[in-house]
């Protein structure tokens, strides 16, 4: 587990959080668990970097938050993808696809 995500990972983390929230609104822990499941345990996120990302995304207007009760009737802050966030996710996904394709081409060429 990296102590501090690198720049690439940081940008990717934002995108993965948006992706996770695209399915349904979720609280912090839920997002962490979902990310870990999706990455098959490659990502193990500490609370600090995760919540810094939430703060950053919320200030950028890509997600919003509200306090709700969990299924275990605990109070938790749920994060919701905004319209702007959805747009950003789509464009980032396309961009990501293009980059991956480009890298793949370079790798094949060599």
């Amino acid at each position: 587990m990296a102590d501090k995500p690198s720049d690439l990972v940081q940008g990717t983390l934002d995108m993965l959080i948006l992706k996770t929230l695209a399915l349904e609104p979720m609280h912090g822990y839920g997002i962490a668990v979902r990310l870990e499941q999706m990455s098959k345990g490659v990502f193990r996120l500490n609370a600090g970097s995760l919540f810094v990302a939430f703060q950053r995304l919320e200030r950028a207007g890509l997600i919003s938050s509200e306090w709700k009760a969990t299924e275990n009737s605990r109070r938790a802050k749920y994060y919701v993808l905004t319209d702007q966030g959805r747009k950003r996710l789509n464009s980032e996904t396309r961009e990501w696809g293009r980059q991956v394709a480009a890298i793949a081409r370079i790798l094949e060429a060599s």
Partner: protein
Amino acid sequence: MSLLRSMVVGLQSLFRKEQVSQELDEELNGFLEMAAEEKMKQGMSRKDALRAVRLERGNLETSKEVVRSAGWESFAEICWQDLRFAARMLRKNPSFTVVAVLTLALGIGANTAIFSVVNAVLLRPLPYKDSDQLVQLIEHDQKRGVDFDWVSFPNFHDWAEQGKAFQYMAAYKFHALNLTNVSQAQMLFGLKVSANLLPTLGAEPILGRNFRPAEDQPGGDHEIILSYDTWRQSFGADPQLIGKTLTLNDQPYTVIGVMPAGFNFPPTVPITSAVPSRKAAFLIPLGLAVNPDQRDWNMLGVIARLKPGATIAQARADLDIVSRSLERQYPTQNQGITVRVEPLLNQVVGDIRPALWVFLAAISLVLLVACANVTNLLLARSTIRQREMALRTSLGASRSRLVRQLFTESLLLAVGGGAFGILLAYGGILLLTTLSPDNLPRIGDVAIDGRVLAYTAVVSVLTGIIFGLAPSLGVALVDVSQPLKGQRSTPTPKHSGLRSTLVVSEVALSLALLIGAGLMLKSFVRMERVDPGFRADKVLTVWTILSEAKYAPQKRAAFYQQAWQRIQALPGVKSVGAIDNLPLSGVHGGGPFTIEGHPTTSDADAPAAYRCVVSLNYFQTMSIPLLQGREFTEHDRDGSPTALIINETAARRYWPAQNPVGSRLSFTTGRTQPTWLEIVGVVKDVLHDGLESPAKPTIYLTFLQSPQAFMVTVARTDVDPASLSPAARGAIAAVDKDQPVLMTRTMADIYSDAVAQRRFNTALIVAFGALALLLAMVGIYGLMAFAVTQRTHEIGVRIALGAQRWDVLKLVLGRGLRLALLGIVFGLAAAFFLTRFLSKLLFNVPQTDPATFIVVSLCLGGIALLASYIPARRAMRADPMLALRYE
């Protein structure tokens, strides 16, 4: 949008710190609890689960800190903490703070004051509507390579008619009117203008109306528009004045308007002592008709407003075509005459612009010297603060944090300096406006406005960055472990090297400034020593213009003869003369002439000279010696042949290697039948246009043969000439009680006006040089004193080991002198390069005058030696026991 949101959220978390912190607390807590519950489900005890989560996810407090420091508001908070800490540190060291802030305040304040002058004089637009579209049109004589600010009416008329790039073109002419039929006859000084002058400027009267187009034709020209000040001072701001009739030059004039208080045209009255007021008191119509014979009578100022969208280049091209066609049409008078189109602002401030930029550059050098001083102070302090820094580092402060802290201190000092600087600038501006010559255009508008404040703010912050950079970064390089081990703090080589460099550059900069000051001072002395060709002391001048309607030429002679007799009879008056164009007053007139036997084809080829009309005793009264021939006598009068006297320069230039006395010349040129006039004498040159312009060829006529309405009476006295002013006015009134006196001034005042600009320039540059010198000396003294304190121990040991006091003195003095010499070498190089920008301001002194360079360098070296002698003497007296006991 998202930036705005970030701001809002950031501000919220700053002001609702508690709530935001609680929410974050709760959220993070929930997160960790949920993680722990997950683990407990797998069978861990709660305690183990919590520990495992802490290991995996980080603990609560660290995470909180990480999240909190990610937002900008935490940065702002740290800055605030830094600021408070910096303020505390500066308060704890009052002497350091006072010296640093004062040094900066001096530099920034002087800079602000000079910039406010630059701002008001050069940068602010003229007070007219869309003033950037206003231009002045000037005749340029290509053959002689000279400009004529004044234009003849026929040329103006043709330019206005044929020029296509202009919305309006207007002409004006200075004019004086005697106001009579009021309690006390008064002379008003104002303008004759074309009817479209006010529309050209985009101005309108506040009362009444402007001239109608037909009203500036000859015959229909008896309307007057008064200035606000005249309306108030001479007519008690009477609103019923519009439509009333005034008697001016014995003619009836109807008041048709009053201009607003802020209106002033022309923006600067030409630099001359002949103008009693800086503001025109009235406008009356020009009333001129095109007279083809007057195409070379240059007497009108011409301004124009460009058509919207038209450029100066277009206007120039346009008028080039016009002037070429006029050249073809009137070859005798207009050959080689082109038109220069200059923005009106350039025309107003063109003369003063180079000087002001030099001042701003010079005062910025002074500010740099001040910066170097403060940097040195800070460096000295940071050596002392090594222990503090080391302690803070070992307690966990990161180096970047320390750098930021020191930088904040520097900026705080700079802002303090800037704030006090503005206070000083107010004083400086007061001083500048009091000392400045009257004719410095727009000097009355100098004030601290938004732009000046912005400039000061930028300069202060820049200053803070410049002097704060080295000390703050120095911290990053210091080995923090040493001071804590209790070792004596010795100046690190890096620091003392930097400090020496700073002192060297300080000395270099001040030397460059001082050499500039030296050159200016020498120019001033050279100018003061210039012989104007007459004796200016103990002469009173009395300025009168007779109304042409009341005084026909013969009556003028009678009036002035009586007036001069009465003034001559006053006690204290030794001799009385008169001239129409008084030297140094800015008034001159003249033109081309023909020498008998040397016909010329056009005006441009003809010899030209100033023309002055003088009374019989003028040369004697002003102590202008006769060189050849004779003076004018009573026999040179109406009916006898016209006699002329020329000056030395005219004789040398136009009658080289021969005696001009007896030669004849004519003021008619070209094809006109000449009237030959005989030269009867040659007098010594007078510097008519000021002490810095060479004498011009001049032809004198005698008053008895060409009586003028406008004469300046000069009276040489053996008492204080100013004290005779009321008596002289009385003498004029005794001849004609309705005849006002334009003004009375002593010739010494007029002389003083002529040198005022140079005196001002010199005083400023010398003051800057002195300020820089003072700062540099404080710098050298500070460095040496500090070095001596730091080396007390070493010096003590040296003395204990048998070094003679003289050796110690040599050690310290040697170092100071080495630095000073190095500074002088660089300073000389800098001065060699920089003084070229001063060359326009110098007079009869080469910009690399070796004597000035050498003398100033020697003086600076001597003062530097003195500045290091004081600490050196202290070092010499160091008690070895005391020094060793420090251990």
